[in-house]
């Protein structure tokens, strides 16, 4: 679950991470009021789940409340990353002396949380990581002990800070760790952390992505905040309701498989034979007849589809159930376009018998199936 900037900042402040003076606004009028409250030049920032919103024009500066209202009007009318902007954050404009980077994420290979910092933050941090990796400081968090104050301090020193600023930054790194730890965060990030000309350190941006698998421990979040407003079409919505991984692509062959790896490999196989997938549809493990039928139904709703490839490797999934689902889909939904079935594994014989009885042909290998469906698609076109 991703949080919007202003939602993340509310949490950051509760952990003593200072943020610029500001507040959220949903209309230009509100934005004007916010700017007036702040009483100095402001930044008006689109609240969307998208990186590089700055480049997309989602951040504008305003010297007066009227300008802020106008900026908000423009931004609220935008779509960024194909998403509508439903709110803006109006914040005091900062007098920037230095942009710093702080982030915490999980290193999957080390299987540890890692705290990352750099005295050169801002949008170019990733290039910096490639160009001058020595300017990026990484500290791994002990999986059993957590992150200690002295480690945050060593990190701040490695980032180049001493004196009073050392202690301020140490506290901020620790606070950021507390946010990450308390919220089961996959990503907790301040970029940039601004050092102002007056010597204040402020989280100018804020990211907090909570581990979806841990959301059950964060009822306040799931109850209190709206979820990521992904705009879904009817097919995507339906697939999500049935907990199927469904992605629409540019091609014309709907690939319906079980398991993400196999589905990806099936797409690759189609491509190798000169075809192009329209649909990535992973039924998941142990799909029954009803689920198989529903999967085919959803895939067929996409107008681009000219052929269907069902590729099942039976493990928990039983081929007899798959066969029943295919037969049902054909009987109930027509399934008049070319369809190639490849199905092996658990209860293979029973499944094949069901298909044979219904007069539906099937193939034994994935490559034959991929080749055949590409061929059939070309014939249709």
């Amino acid at each position, binding site marked *: 679950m991703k949080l919007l900037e202003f939602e993340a900042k509310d949490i950051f402040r509760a952990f003593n991470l200072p943020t610029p003076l500001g507040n959220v606004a949903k209309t230009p009028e509100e934005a004007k009021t916010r700017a007036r409250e702040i009483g100095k030049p402001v930044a008006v920032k689109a609240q969307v789940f998208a990186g590089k919103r700055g480049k997309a024009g989602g951040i504008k500066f305003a010297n007066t409340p009227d300008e802020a209202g106008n900026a908000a009007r423009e931004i609220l009318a935008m779509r960024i990353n194909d998403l509508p902007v439903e709110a803006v954050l109006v914040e005091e404009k900062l007098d920037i002396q230095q942009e710093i980077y702080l982030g915490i994420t*999980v290193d*999957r290979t080390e299987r540890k949380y890692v705290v990352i910092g750099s005295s050169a933050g801002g949008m170019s941090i990733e290039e910096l990581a490639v160009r001058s990796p020595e300017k990026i400081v990484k500290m791994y968090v002990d999986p059993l002990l957590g992150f200690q104050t002295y480690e945050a301090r060593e990190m701040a020193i490695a980032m180049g800070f001493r004196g009073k600023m050392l202690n301020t930054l140490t506290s901020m790194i620790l606070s950021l760790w507390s946010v990450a730890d308390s919220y089961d965060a996959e990503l907790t990030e301040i970029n940039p952390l601004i050092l102002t000309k007056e010597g204040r350190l402020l989280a100018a941006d804020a990211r907090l992505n909570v581990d979806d698998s841990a959301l059950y421990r964060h009822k306040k979040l799931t109850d209190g905040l709206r979820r990521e407003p992904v705009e879904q079409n009817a097919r995507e919505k339906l697939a999500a309701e049935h907990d199927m991984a469904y992605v629409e692509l540019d091609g014309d062959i709907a690939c319906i498989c079980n398991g993400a790896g196999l589905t990806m490999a099936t797409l690759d*196989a189609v491509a*190798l034979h000169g075809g192009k997938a329209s649909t990535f549809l992973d039924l998941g493990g142990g799909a029954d007849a009803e689920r198989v039928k529903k999967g085919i139904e959803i895939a067929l709703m996409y107008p681009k589809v000219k052929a269907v490839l069902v590729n099942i490797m039976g*493990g928990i999934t039983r081929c007899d159930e798959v066969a029943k689902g295919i037969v049902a889909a054909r009987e109930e939904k027509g399934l008049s376009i070319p369809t190639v079935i490849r199905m092996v594994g658990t209860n293979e014989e029973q499944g094949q018998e069901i298909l044979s009885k219904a007069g539906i042909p099937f193939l034994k290998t994935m490559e034959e199936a991929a080749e055949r469906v590409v061929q059939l698609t070309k014939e249709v076109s």
Partner: protein
Amino acid sequence: MAVLVDKKTRVIVQGITGSQGTFHTASMLKYGTKVVAGTSPGKGGTDVNGVPVYDTVREAKREHDATASIIFIPAAYAADAALEAISEGLNPVVVITEHLPVKDEIRVIHVAAQKGITIIGPNTPGIITPIVKQKVGIMPGHVFSPGNVGLMSRSGTLTYEIAAGMTLAGIGISTAIGLGGDPCVGLTPTEGLKLFRNDKATRAVVLVGEIGGDAEERAASFVSKGFDLPVVAFIAGRTAPPGKRMGHAGAIISGSTGTAEAKIKALKDAGVAVAERPSQVAELLRKALK
């Protein structure tokens, strides 16, 4: 000889009374696995498919001299189940459950590591050693024939696909390990390579990877430093649309784009034979084993 699971392995099924636990206990027994006991707190004293059920792993282990565990427990309780198995010294501990909180995964993996115990998974089909008819997992046993190739994979059904292709080509498997699909898993490809290197029954290794993360790149780097067995790889996801990114931090850490191209290049540079199609794995193996 085999990796992690051999003929002496005696398995406890944690969460044996749930529908998954019950179903796969039957399936494991049918395959030949020595499932000696199960646990289900509050249901001690009953049995499932003739397998006695206990309230705790401690009791089950004490009564049946168990050596390994397989876990079918809902995500919120799976980490505790794994810690229980670890505290009793069961090894390996196979966590079938998917979507454990990452924080729990990290904790479990490191506690296990301190005790020298291997966690397989979470979100894994498990591990199978065909020659001794022992599977501690949910994979269809019949697609894995016995032989001398070690197989490890990040994805489930694709593993079966490749195992089936090998079987069809007359190439057997020493041990196949589902590494698991969750963000943090107990066994990395690199660690898997080390296990297979020390196994006398293994003459070559197949690594099945997929897009995302940098586990394959790190395995490639490990191989490039000198690895005594031939390695064949297949990477799924060449035509997958670019996935969602995790802010800047992800890219900074992995130092990799995580694309199939990047992984394939790293592996080829390390001298690994990379298959274009799953069926090609068997061909490349045949060449490598000559």
